[in-house]
């Protein structure tokens, strides 16, 4: 028995094409795509009404607050948010309480995830114990336990010797290291990006150059160690030439950017709106435009939600004291579609940065519409307009910068391994 999606606008990130046709799923896998599918008795046929059908999103860097802060986000609530956002694979962060830095904690997290959600969860582990930047974690054991990448999240391993050893060790095991790129002493205490806006608001600020400085150091270390490296967020124009050079020189380097840095700029902070406080801080409009362009050309590979739940208490504080981060699982796709509607890039290019590219980087079979690929799919209407109300979000934390924003593009359905996990028609939100 097959599941046939007919009358769909198929967005194929692998071929970079969009075609009108149908897609057939059997036993959790895509078996065929084409202009016309031939349904047999017992097959389930779903008329997509000409809406977009694409691989489910693979989101690298989702924070689920288990263990430690389940009141902010649990695997259950994150899974619901992901399903509603068309995210079929969450690659979770280890910056929990305590950090995920031992195989035992990693196994606990993997078990919790399996019990709580149908969305695929792939955990990352810390690169150094307690994310303290002093001693590397048991990278080998953690890989065996299922860690897909190693990262200290928003903490930079400031000690270059520690970092170079961890990279060397990771290289020997083929492990992917994900780093935050900010010169740590320059960015210490900063709540905004240096410039007119930060000066006007009197906020402690960091030069955009701090990102390039950190990337320059890391590129030298990658040249030295040969490790597999991914920069979590490249958000400034000044860092792009260093990234381009590293790729041209054949280093095993990729880069990501959060959806917030692609769609918002520093001015959005306005009168100290703490829901716009993220790490690194929002940048100038010139930087935003440069980074959007870098996604369009493929220099920046991956778009993430950088989903970071924070409760009201940690955000209702003076801007400098307020916690950083924004939730993004449910708004990732509609916000990303702003780039499509603005004419910055076509749909396959945009979708590729959230599907095929992250899947490839992690060696996953997802992110494709070709025969044999897992039937992880999202059906969305790219044009449907709506005004976001943060209270409708499924995340336990509602700290979105898009509250009250006009968005265009809604998810209609989400499938993991051919099983429907979200249906906009029957969803109660």
């Amino acid at each position: 028995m097959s599941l046939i999606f007919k009358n769909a606008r198929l967005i194929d990130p692998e071929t970079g094409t969009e075609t009108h046709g149908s897609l057939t799923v059997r036993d959790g896998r895509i078996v065929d795509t084409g202009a016309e599918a031939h349904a047999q008795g017992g097959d389930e046929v779903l008329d997509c009404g000409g809406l977009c059908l694409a691989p489910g999103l693979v989101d690298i860097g989702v924070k689920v607050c288990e263990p430690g802060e389940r009141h902010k986000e649990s695997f259950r609530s994150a899974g619901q948010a992901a399903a509603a956002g068309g995210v079929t694979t969450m690659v979770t962060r280890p910056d929990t309480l305590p950090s995920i830095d031992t195989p035992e904690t990693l196994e606990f997290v993997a078990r919790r995830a399996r019990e709580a959600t149908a969305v695929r969860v792939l955990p990352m582990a810390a690169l150094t114990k307690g994310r303290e930047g002093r001693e590397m974690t048991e990278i080998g054991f953690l890989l065996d336990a299922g860690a897909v990448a190693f990262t200290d999240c928003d903490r930079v391993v400031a000690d270059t010797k520690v970092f170079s050893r961890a990279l060397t060790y990771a290289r020997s095991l083929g492990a992917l290291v994900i780093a935050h790129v900010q010169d740590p002493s320059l960015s210490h205490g900063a709540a905004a990006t240096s410039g007119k806006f930060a000066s006007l608001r009197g906020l402690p600020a960091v030069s955009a150059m701090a990102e390039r400085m950190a990337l320059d150091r890391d590129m030298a270390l990658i040249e030295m160690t040969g490790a597999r490296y991914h920069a979590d967020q490249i958000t400034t124009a000044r860092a792009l030439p260093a990234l381009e050079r590293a790729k041209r020189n054949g280093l095993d380097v990729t880069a990501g950017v959060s959806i917030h840095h692609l769609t918002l700029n520093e001015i959005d902070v306005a009168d100290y709106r703490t829901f716009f406080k993220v790490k690194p801080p929002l940048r100038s409009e010139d930087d935003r435009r440069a980074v959007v362009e870098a996604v369009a050309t493929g220099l920046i590979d991956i778009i993430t939600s950088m989903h970071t739940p924070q409760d009201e208490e940690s955000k209702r504080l003076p801007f400098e004291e307020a916690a950083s981060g924004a939730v993004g699982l449910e708004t990732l796709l509609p916000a990303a579609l702003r780039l499509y509607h603005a004419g910055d890039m076509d749909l396959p290019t945009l979708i590729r940065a959230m599907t095929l590219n992250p899947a490839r980087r992690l060696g996953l079979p997802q992110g494709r519409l070709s025969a044999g690929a897992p039937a992880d799919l999202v059906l969305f209407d790219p044009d449907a307009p709506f005004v976001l109300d943060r209270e409708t979000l499924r995340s336990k934390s509602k700290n979105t910068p898009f509250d009250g924003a006009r968005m265009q593009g809604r998810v209609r359905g989400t499938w993991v391994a051919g099983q429907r996990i979200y249906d906009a028609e029957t969803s109660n939100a």
Partner: protein
Amino acid sequence: MAFTQTHLLGIEPLAPAEITALLNLADDYVALSRSANKHSDALAGLTQINMFFENSTRTQASFELAGRRLGADVMNMAMQMSSVKKGETLIDTALTLNAMQPDLLVVRHPQSGAVDLLAQKVNCAVLNAGDGRHEHPTQALLDALTIRRRKGRLHRLSIAICGDIAHSRVARSNLILLGKMENRIRLIGPPTLMPSGIADFGCEVYEDMAEGLKDVDVVMMLRLQKERMDGGFIPSEREYYHRYGLDAEKLAHAKPDAIVMHPGPMNRGVEIDGTIADDINRSVIQEQVEMGVAVRMAAMDLLARNLRARRSAAA
């Protein structure tokens, strides 16, 4: 145009006409404060609470006196020692205070934007008495009043602001106010104490004191905080004094009738030479203190009028 503000959180939201209206009323309050009976009933029946999350003797005294001269019931809360230390958040503190039905809340806080945050949670008029490095609106208004009375106008003057611009809320508020009133502004200081992107504010930036002071009408000095003195931002106090301290030699580059201002408290021998500070022909530093009380009386009076109007409209 009337003064339409609900709060006084900064100079930025004010229209030039509102600034003028406030200064005009402040002129009346200077006269009142100099008269035999220094009392009015403008704020009679109203409660004013001064919440200072950061130490201040002068500003707090000035606000207290301003409130008392207008007949308000004034209470001071020293927030450094209060429940804030016990972990209460700013919002909770605001809600607690709000329940006491104050009419005017005067707030100083060490973090930029904290007073804005607090103002969103209370239903009385809030006056910013300085938030982090953001704004200190009554200081800029008292400086403006001092200049206007001394120079006879508050436009087309050449004004130099000197010293630690980066960490100064006084500099920010003055820059905005004097810019709104169409003056020519120069900022003078070492580059380590200059905020980034400052040239976009429509002012000229100088690193050399003599060059920057050339032919200015007004010299505004800023206080250099002790914690900035030792090696972090400048090499030493004495090198700073040598290059940026205001002495007779440097002041000679300004116009012969240029006035010297300082928001206080002064570090004599660091940013300003003692004899300049005491020179009654040049220094208007004591006058600034007097204007401070009048400007605060005017600000609280105008906000209270708007508050009463809103309340009677709602009733």
